[in-house]
């Protein structure tokens, strides 16, 4: 199966029902997407599939084949994405394990909704679980990233 990840093309010989997450992590060695729950509950595995945030633990390879994947490693490959800048400035991460997924979710969210209300942010970002409780800083970082993206 063909897959383009962060601009590189790969040909993978894996089962059709292998989740994209495990093809990325164990077949391609791309470790930014994290395994947290395996059932699309935590969002740690979030990547962009053809430009939109998806839970890679719950996308089977037959659904991903032929498509373009961006992981956290590819998001800021040339220069940091505004969301990453905001995450660094607001010092969001504690353990950091969920943050790749949080950042990938926030990037798609802000692309679709450049001027979100507080309620929009709460709703969109509630799909990503953070066990350390970095939520107050996530809220601040999403707002500041939105402002950065609007003024860019």
């Amino acid at each position, binding site marked *: 199966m063909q897959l383009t990840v962060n601009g590189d093309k790969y040909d993978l010989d894996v089962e059709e029902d292998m989740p994209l997450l495990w093809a990325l992590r*164990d077949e391609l060695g791309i470790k930014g997407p994290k395994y947290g729950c395996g059932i699309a509950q935590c969002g740690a595995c979030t990547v962009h599939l053809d430009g939109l945030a998806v839970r890679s633990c719950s996308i089977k390879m037959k659904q991903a084949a032929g498509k373009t994947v961006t992981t956290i490693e590819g998001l800021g490959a040339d220069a940091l994405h505004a969301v990453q800048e905001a995450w660094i400035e607001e*010092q*969001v991460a504690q*353990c950091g394990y969920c943050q790749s997924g949080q950042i990938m979710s926030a990037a798609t969210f802000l692309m679709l909704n450049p001027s979100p209300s507080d309620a929009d942010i709460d709703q969109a970002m509630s799909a990503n679980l953070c066990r350390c409780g970095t939520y107050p800083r996530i809220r601040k970082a999403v707002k500041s990233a939105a402002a950065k993206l609007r003024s860019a």
Partner: protein
Amino acid sequence: MVDMGKVARRTFIIGSAAIAGGVAFGYYAINRPHKNPLLDDLEPGEAAFNPWVKITPEAVVLIAPHADLGQGVRSMQAALIAEELDLDWGDFVVSPGEPSPAYYNRALADMAAPFLSTDRSVPAELTRGAMGALFKLLGAQVTGGSSSVPDSYETLRLAGAVARETLKKAAAKREGVRVADLTTEKGAVVLPDGRTIPYTELAADAAKIKPVSNVELRDPSEWRLIGKPMPRLDIEPKSTGAVTYGVDVEVDGMLHASIKLNPRQGGALLSYDASAAEAMRGIKTVMPVTGGVAVVADNTWRAFKAADAIDCEWGPAPYPNEMADHWAALENSFTDDLLDSKWRDEGDMDAALEGTEVISAEYRAPYLAHAPLEPISAIVRVDDDGAEVWTGTQIPRFVQTNVAAIVGCKPEEVRLHNQYIGGSFGHRLEDEQVKLAAEIAKAMKGKPIKLTYSREGDFAHDFPRQIALARTQGVVKDGKVEAFDISIAMPSVLDSQFSRQAMSAPPGPDDQIAAGAWNLPYAIPHYRMRAYRAAQLAPISSWRSVGASSNGFFADCALDELIIAAGADPMEERLRLADDPVSLKVLEAVADMSNWGSDLGPDRGRGVAFVRSFGVPVAEVIEVTNTPSGVRIDKVFAAADVGRIIDPVNFESQVSGGVVWGLGHAMNCEITYKDGKAEQSNYHQFEGMRLYQCPEIIVRGLENAERIRGMGEPAVPPAAPALANAIFNATGQRIREMPFNKHIRFV
């Protein structure tokens, strides 16, 4: 009086055997410093002045032996060394180092002594000294108990100062100038003529001289780093996906393993049929291991899938199958035989309760999973020289010992590479996954085996927070709290944890059964606290704030009930009762922050709670609104006193993270057993808190306490009682059992 702890620490660092008389240490060995582990593999031209600083011709390497679980201690440890060593922030390499007895945790030893943290009496100090001696002998390198800051605060600054003065001495010798004429700045020694010599260029010379032993620590007024916001060293790599956690480590030739263990924890494997699993793609082998079966494959997902396909017949659980029997065991534990200790007995409780109206209540706290987002994993490779291990652990030397016992080598032949940990909350104080990985790796000598738990496996085999039950009673008189009596029963976390290390818990009472309930800083005329050590039930472990996570809820809410019954204001009465000046200031701060007493408007309420755990007084005020779709938490105000704040940004993160942890679990979570198995298998049944439920959190740090303390845990215990007290204030409903969502709806 002489501060025994301080003397011991200084002596340790400097390596002198001089020690003040009168310390209850029985061994000469106690006075002798542990060997510096950095000397073992020093290359020519490199210098290591103590176990925390190594300078090579290329880099200044700082060793941060406390494990980083997300609480930011790698940066904190580096900051303390860099402060005295005059390094610019980030202009160094930080490494977790290798496990060594030199990194034994002095502060945890202090806390293991069952005295109030403010108690500086001779018995308290002697006991702390003896515990310190024990921990040192054991070489107990442990990250936990909110002890990383107190353990590091003086030691690591001294380590930086020793390195700095030794480098100056080397420079003085080389340049023929006086040490007194030298200064240091930006990782270099500055000569009288203004020229600078980078430390890296002095490493070879410095390695040839004896480290300077007599150093003075700088006055806080001279600090460049400590007390100021520092970007955590891991923030950028954690925002770009560049951090490697234990579960991300790759070793050449590595295979992936998964396990299927008896979901009745500790029960036996009676038989299994792996024929379907063995036929699946990528499966290398299936083998029995302690308590279950392991699958080895070429991909984690294939290993998970094959493990699911194994048919197993399991033996019974070594604890009651059903929750009702767990609760019954606690209900029957308030007996004289099981009285672990009577921690407080002020006034005359029996007389106070006699012939008057007694207000009594019963409080419950359930089992709770740790469920950090990074599932537990370990890579082990067994070879002729011993074993090599890659994992994230808070107990590296226990890991070495356990792997050595399985593999059949010496602990020092187990080379351990400690990793960044994606959340722990106490989970990585256990090392079952490393033991199992070692069993598999031993059977597949030469092959690195990475064992990863599935999320379902992690929930099924976590050792949860203790289940606990409290019975409280009290008397009020003339608008005041007159008597407060609290008895708590729980199985001992220490007993359970030590049993998995094939050790017995230290003799004497387990202070965690009483933590957060025996040290109320209130001058209540009659105050009694009794702790009952119930028999072991399900295996349990330390969970962020341990005993205080249940007991803070019990004690503060039960007291709140008395204050309400007395007709007093919850804040005013706590302020009136407070007899510890540091705690009083914390309560005053939170009253001020929350504008306590102001009108909140309709359908709203507020509650205050105060709990002291790990030596840190914390007060929280919570404001809620009773909406038609349930209770919404609007704001949390939190004030805490740790004596000295090392980094205000990280301090704030630890407090607000602790509040979220405390609230999310109190509102929404429990682990229950049915047929001996945990009923919750993934986050859809154990959510903690999600962002939409997260209130605004306003934090204030105070620095009045005499001793410095850590903030990883102490913000957790007051969150649940502050919420329950606020819910009572808003709705009139008193909740005495966690999780609260069994009794009330949340937005």
